[in-house]
């Protein structure tokens, strides 16, 4: 059986520096995979390569999403196909209203999927429901995208966008960074509410704490551009206890860790 997402021997560079040095990963529908690793290990690079950020150059390997070549697609087509990345640093976009922007995005996605565009009334009704998921203040709807939002509001807004766009694969790029425990809980509750058997998650984090709330099926540890260890959720706890230094020396000896979930 092939997975929803299949990553094979992925190598990627930025400005000529190789960051990802051979990633293999298969994610089945409904699974939650966590990727942990020290700063600079390539976690966010992997997220951004999957989302299609052009600054990253894929030098080898393949990625398929639901059988289609993901790397061939423009970022907007990946989004329309159902890949969503919650940004580590959501971008402020003055002058573009959060709701209107989201309506344009949703309609672009729906059009791509052969669905009818949503009218304003339907859209607002749907949006109100989704806002409750992340306890978003209605005031944030009418503001420009992320402008003047607190760190926590920005992250909640990302999950809110995710809830509205209903992607198949959700990539959370250090969504927990900069969040206090209350905000973290709200974000995690939002994510958990979106878990479904046809929706998968790739949760990238530096800290184990997030995984107390978003409980993963698999945990992979990324060190220096390679997975050095994969396991179940208990691997996260072990890491928390022993620290990354426990695994850092392992990278060269284990160039190709066993992919899991395959």
């Amino acid at each position, binding site marked *: 059986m092939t997975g929803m997402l299949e990553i094979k021997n992925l190598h990627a560079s930025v400005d000529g520096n190789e960051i990802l040095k051979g990633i293999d990963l298969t994610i089945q529908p409904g699974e939650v995979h966590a990727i942990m690793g020290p700063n600079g290990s390539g976690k966010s690079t992997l997220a951004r390569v999957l*989302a*299609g*950020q*052009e600054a990253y150059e894929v030098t080898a390997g393949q990625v398929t999403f639901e059988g289609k070549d993901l790397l061939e697609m*423009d*970022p*907007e087509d*990946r*989004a*329309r196909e159902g890949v*969503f*990345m919650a*940004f580590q640093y*959501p*971008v402020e*976009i*003055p*002058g*573009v*209203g959060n709701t*209107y*922007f*989201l*309506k*344009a*995005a*949703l*309609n*672009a*996605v729906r059009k*791509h999927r052969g669905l009818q565009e949503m009218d304003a009334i339907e859209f607002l009704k749907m949006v109100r429901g989704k806002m409750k998921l992340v306890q978003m203040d209605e005031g944030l709807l009418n503001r*420009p995208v992320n402008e003047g939002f607190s760190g926590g509001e920005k992250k909640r807004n990302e999950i809110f*966008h995710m809830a509205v*766009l209903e992607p198949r694969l959700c990539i959370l790029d250090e969504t927990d960074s900069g969040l206090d425990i209350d905000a973290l809980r709200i974000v995690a509750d939002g994510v958990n509410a979106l878990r479904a058997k046809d929706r998968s998650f790739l949760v990238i984090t530096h800290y184990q704490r997030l995984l107390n709330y978003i409980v993963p099926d698999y945990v992979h540890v990324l060190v220096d551009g390679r997975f050095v260890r994969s396991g179940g959720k208990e691997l996260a706890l072990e890491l928390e206890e022993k620290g990354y230094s426990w695994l850092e020396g392992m990278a060269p000896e284990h160039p190709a860790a066993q992919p899991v979930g395959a």
Partner: protein
Amino acid sequence: MPVTTSESAITGVEGYVAEFERFQQTLNEPAGLTALRRRAIARFAELGFPTLRQEEWRLTNVAPVAQGAFHWPENDPDAVAPGLLAPHTFDAAARLVFVDGRFSPRHSFVGELPPGTVVASLAEVLAREPERLEPWLARFAKFDRHPFVALNTAFLRDGAFVHVPRGAVTGPIHLLFLSSGEEGRPTLSFPRNLFVAGEGSQTAIVETYAGEGAYFTAPVTELVAGPSAVIDHYKVQRESLGAFHLATFQVQGERAAVPSSHSISIGGALVRNDVNAVLDGEGIDCILNGLYFGDGRQVVDNHMRVEHAKPHCASHELYKGVLDGKSRAVFNGLIHVHKGAQKTDAKQSNRNLLLSRDAIANSNPQLEIFADDVKCTHGSTVGQLDEDAVFYLRSRGIGAEAARSLLTYAFASDIVERIKIEPVRRDLEEFLFTRLPMGEVVRQAV
């Protein structure tokens, strides 16, 4: 560059001077005004057309105007096709239409206005009761250092005279200037406007410039904002792409006046806007905003000069430019604070968005401060679209082109949103939706 073989073409400094000799014989006006014209043409003869060697013009080449040959219009202003007017009109309290600088009574109307309010053709007022204009006309826009103001003053004939009396409140007054130069016979016009807002009055005036073909127009507008007068001025420049538009807008503020100006520049081959504000009373709050677009080989130059002559005045300037193709923009912003103008609060900001590699923006803020208890800030930026923002929008399913257009719209929107007259704001939004690639997505998303 316009070329013509017609005998009546006016070209070069000598051409204008010779034309003035002929022109002044046709005038029947107070001796004082004719004397003023003579001084102006004499000054123009001394100054000549500006060259790149002059500091104030070093980045804007007016050779196409200096070397061009232009004709006075011969058409009947009332005969202008209504189809030319329609795209620019809106529901106003009064509208005056000028065709190639001459008043068209047929296309103009003055609706209900407070008693004592005058909205009229300057030529008519000059013919009937010139003494009405005497306290203000040509007293503020100085021609001694500006050849185009000198030319306008020498040849001024028609334009709008708006006088809002003390305490009166009016709806928006619309002045529409259409030009219609023909290929091979480009026209010439020197519209001259005088707006006087009496003490405590409130009004809004919209000047629209539009046209077809090739022509040269050098309008001068003088605005006198009386004590505590609130006046919103809008200039929408949508000249043809064959037009040379060299305009001066002169604001004279009196005590506690609140003058604001919004200048939108879209059309024209060569555009220069000199905006001069003299804050000559305490407690004036002056806003000068602008938004300019350039594409192809358009040149647009905004030259601002704000003079804080008295204490406790505020001036806030925000000019933004969107430049594509091989267009070029110049922004020169001078703030001059006179000795004794304490507690001045002057802010100036110029931001340029370059959409192509070949577009150029020059931004030059200048502060001259002769008082010691003031707050003056300025900032200017020239940059491209934020690629992170483009990617963010694309990652949500918005196409690349639409994402760029959306961000371009967003860049312009803080000026657009400040336009208080809804039809003017809507027209500008409509322009953006039409002009920007994938504008329909932008329409939906804002």
